[in-house]
């Protein structure tokens, strides 16, 4: 059984951990000015929304990234609506998966 990529995993850890740890371990982070803390408070919604949007709307092709419109928009949109309405992520995920399954079964 190959273990060659275990070394790659260790190296990937070494380039990932600093970005995870710097904020939590650097002593000056809790003395940031109010404006900076306000900015950081908005980082979560912005990055998570960017992750979702890029995942659904951009597909990689041989010619480079391409804008994509498809069933995934409806599935993810339904999840968004349910979470906003019911504050229940579990229900939202079930709805998204159900829409994807039904849509693909219907050939969409």
């Amino acid at each position, binding site marked *: 059984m190959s273990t060659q990529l275990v070394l790659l995993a260790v190296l990937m850890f070494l380039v990932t951990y600093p970005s995870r740890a710097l904020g939590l371990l650097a002593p000056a982070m809790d003395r940031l000015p109010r404006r900076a803390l306000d900015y950081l408070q908005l980082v979560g919604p912005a990055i998570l929304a960017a992750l979702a*949007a890029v995942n*659904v709307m951009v597909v990689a092709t041989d010619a480079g990234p391409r804008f994509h419109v498809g069933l995934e928009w409806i599935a993810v949109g339904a999840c968004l609506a349910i979470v906003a309405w019911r504050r229940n992520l579990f229900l939202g995920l079930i709805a*998204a998966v159900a829409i994807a399954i039904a849509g693909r079964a219907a050939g969409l």
Partner: protein
Amino acid sequence: MTSAAGETPGNDDALRASRRQLILESAGIAVSAMGFGFVYGLAARDAGFSPVEVLAMSVIVFAGAAQFAAVGYVAGGLAWPGILLLTALLNARHLLYSAALAPLLRDRPFLERAVMAHLLTDEAFALAMAHFRRLGWTDTWGYWVAAIGATFIPWNIATMAGVLVGGSIPEPNRFGIDVIFPAAMVGLAVGLISGRREIVAAVVGAGIGVAVALVAGPAIGIIAGGLVGPAVGLAIPSSRAPERAPLGTRASARGYAMPGGLRDEGEPAERPAAPGDPGSPE
């Protein structure tokens, strides 16, 4: 349990209510992590990764998007320095999460924060932050539930399942597994929104993310969205008291309050909504 920003822990009802909410949300994220992890294990297996290599990636790197990308890079024959550069770029967003959590976890021991850092993911950040905000103080139990219970354990079990038994499942996308990750991300974003500043940051972050991704690639797009979205959100005047209150305080947490939670000392369990209360007309 620790307090943040000089706050004292709230009443037990608020803690119980917020933990219940956290567990409910964690169940959804655990399902998402299992679906996403299963597909990752499947993809890694198809790219020629051995079970030991898949497990090493999931335990040591523990970064889903970067692991997925690495499968593609390895399969495509990209040299390791290139893989490491792209991994660092893709995971640079964690710096922002880490900095956002820092004021709330500053009272924890250094070693504990060092372990917390390794387990910091999109999901752990969003679940824990929403929990802390609902409470108005830092309940570290919530961080561990979010980081280990909702993500680390399901992710690792599912990646192994994917690499070991995934070959027998034809076309996993037919089962909607590919929509789980974006749906979970958007659901977590909604959970962090308590006012129009966050809405603007999320909408702008998504728009900038897609626009830049089409030009410069997904990793750059996500980081650009995460940097520009909050900057534009900050330009929006905060209209509600919870938005103006410092992060981690009880006043800030009122933007995320739920029925039965976040009552002041001596305040009755139920009282009529008053102007300025969360959910009441402005």
